[in-house]
């Protein structure tokens, strides 16, 4: 589904990714772990199409096609979703309006009819219930005044409403207490399926107790230095990253 080939990327002339290669097949859950500054969030942003990076080498294929020239919205319409590490607050735009615009933009790109407000609210309310959130959030401004945990749950809510086939979670676990972590993990697990893939970026093994990955990769200084199964995460938890650094 997603294939990253020898990716090199700079930000302001500083090389962050130095030849990253990764292949994620349909239905697989991959996790990327790594210390601060290893390039985890850069990778997430590049996959979503953020324009602040300069790609100097390599390619990213999604369902066999390069997405390098695609705008963020085109990638989202194709089914790539990034749960942001730091979701943006937008005063004056309600969650409900934002989510309906987003869902209808994606539907439009597929040739589906836009949903009417009533139809949308019905879907949204079901998903909100699943995530144990309050319905009133629909009428609140997007992420404005949300606690850290609420923002993260709101990202997962967006994910479950937009129903992407490739979800990238960028440190969705940071700042969550154990209850919120379980709710978020349940939300993710409810979206798993044979045609859905996940890339879970995290610092800590903790989240992976709930979202069990098929593969774990260690990213250090812009390269994947080791890959393994879920037991690698446990090993990292006890030994840290230093044994993998040069």
């Amino acid at each position, binding site marked *: 589904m997603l294939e990253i080939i020898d990716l090199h990327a700079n930000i302001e002339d500083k090389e962050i990714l130095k030849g990253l290669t990764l292949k994620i097949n349909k239905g697989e859950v991959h996790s990327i772990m790594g210390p601060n500054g290893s390039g985890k969030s850069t990778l997430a942003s590049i996959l*979503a*199409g*953020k*324009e602040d990076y300069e790609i100097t080498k390599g390619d990213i294929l999604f369902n066999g096609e390069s997405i390098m020239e695609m*705008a*963020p*919205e085109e*990638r*989202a*319409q194709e089914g790539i*979703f*990034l749960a*942001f590490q730091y*979701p*943006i607050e*937008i*005063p*004056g*735009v309600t969650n409900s*309006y*934002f989510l309906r*615009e*987003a*869902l209808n*933009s*994606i539907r439009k*790109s597929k040739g589906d009819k836009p949903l009417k407000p009533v139809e949308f609210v019905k879907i949204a309310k079901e998903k909100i219930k699943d995530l144990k959130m309050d319905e009133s959030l629909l009428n609140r401004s997007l992420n404005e005044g949300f606690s850290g945990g609420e923002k993260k749950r709101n990202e997962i809510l*967006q994910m479950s409403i*937009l129903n992407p086939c490739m979800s990238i979670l960028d440190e969705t676990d940071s700042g969550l207490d154990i209850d919120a972590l379980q709710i978020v993990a349940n939300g993710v697990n409810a979206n798993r399926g044979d045609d859905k893939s996940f890339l879970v970026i995290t610092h800590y093994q903790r989240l992976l107790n709930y979202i069990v990955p098929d593969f774990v990769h260690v990213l250090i200084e812009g390269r994947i230095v080791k890959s393994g199964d879920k037991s690698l995460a446990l090993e990292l938890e006890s030994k840290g990253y230093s044994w993998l650094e040069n």
Partner: protein
Amino acid sequence: MENFKKNIKDNFEDFYSQNTSSDVLNNFRKNSFASLNSLGLPSLKDEDWRFTDLNDFYKSTFKHRIQDNKKFDSALIPESLNFSDVTFVYLYNGKLSHFDSTENVKIEDLESYVSSLDSNEFEEIINGHSEKNKDFTFEMNSSFLKDGVYIEVEKNIKLKKPIVIINYYDSEASFVCHRNVINFQDLSKGQIVEYTFSIDDISFLSNKATCFLLGNSTNVEHLSVDESNKSSYILSNLKISQKKDSNFTTDTILTGGKLYRNNVHPVLNGEGSNSNILGLYLSKDNQHMDNYMFVEHIKPNCDSRQLYKGILKDTSKGVFHGRILVHNEAQKTDAKQTNRNLLLSEKAQVDTKPQLEIYADDVKCTHGATTGQIDNEALYYLRARGINLEDAKLIMIRSFTEELLEFISSNFILDLHKSFVEKWFLNSQLAKSE
């Protein structure tokens, strides 16, 4: 400048000699013109005009409108104002054309009403507004006082239908001067909308004024929308005199004019009164919109909230001058001023200047101003959810205006506000701006 001075003088002499009215009115005109002369015409050196260059304007010549009695064709008003349950008042090139009559409300041509006043009444209804903050635009309006409408809402009356004043200009190179005086007697309540527009491709000078007299415990909401063409010069004044426990909200939407001077002057002249002063200036091409706020707190325990927002495109320019004057008697004043600007082009420009003068010691007075562009992080976030760049920009621009809506309680005004703002968005190809 000399050319313009002469132009105004010639117009005034013609006007004064041809329009003899009551002594009170004649004297008022003559004194106002003398005051206009002694004030002189402003230049960039004047603190109150330092961001607005009038030199180009001074080169134009205008002819004070010759009175005729053409009837306004109400088919000209835009669809968004096509209501059956409002009271319409039509002004044609400043002159009252016709109106719907409604119970408990006096609607009359300004000059004919004013001519019937004795000097005390005149002082209260007309001259009460002229005392403070002498400004050439208002003195000029007073010098040519004649056209416009007088509206009086009787005591205790709650207007069942909003009053919608339509203001239409279609006369090339004309100098149109008119004033609407709107008098809400004690305990009355209602909504007033003023909609100003013109035919395209003519240049004219509109020197208009709207003066509210708000009695004790009145409750009034006002919306003023100006869509005059982009070749016009507009020198506008909005003055509000508020008595005890009166509540007033005014919301201005400016999209018109080549050069627009928007003077707003609320006077909180009765204890416990409250004024919300909202505005949205939407400029593009080479439009210049200068908003001069002068909020005057005279009596204690009054609140004022100013929230003015600008969206500026292309090479347009905006000015926000926010003056608050708290007199020494006005203890427990709570005055807040906010100006926010969204620049949609590298070449758009805005100058913003607060000016607080506080002579009482127990007051709360705050001001704040911001100027910025659409937040790229927010755009990226919206796009990452599948929303196209153009739509994402429009969502951000729309959200910028949203804060104003919180102050408007009348659904009628709220819906009109939204529809005029959306109309400007639609006509301005915002998403395509650089």
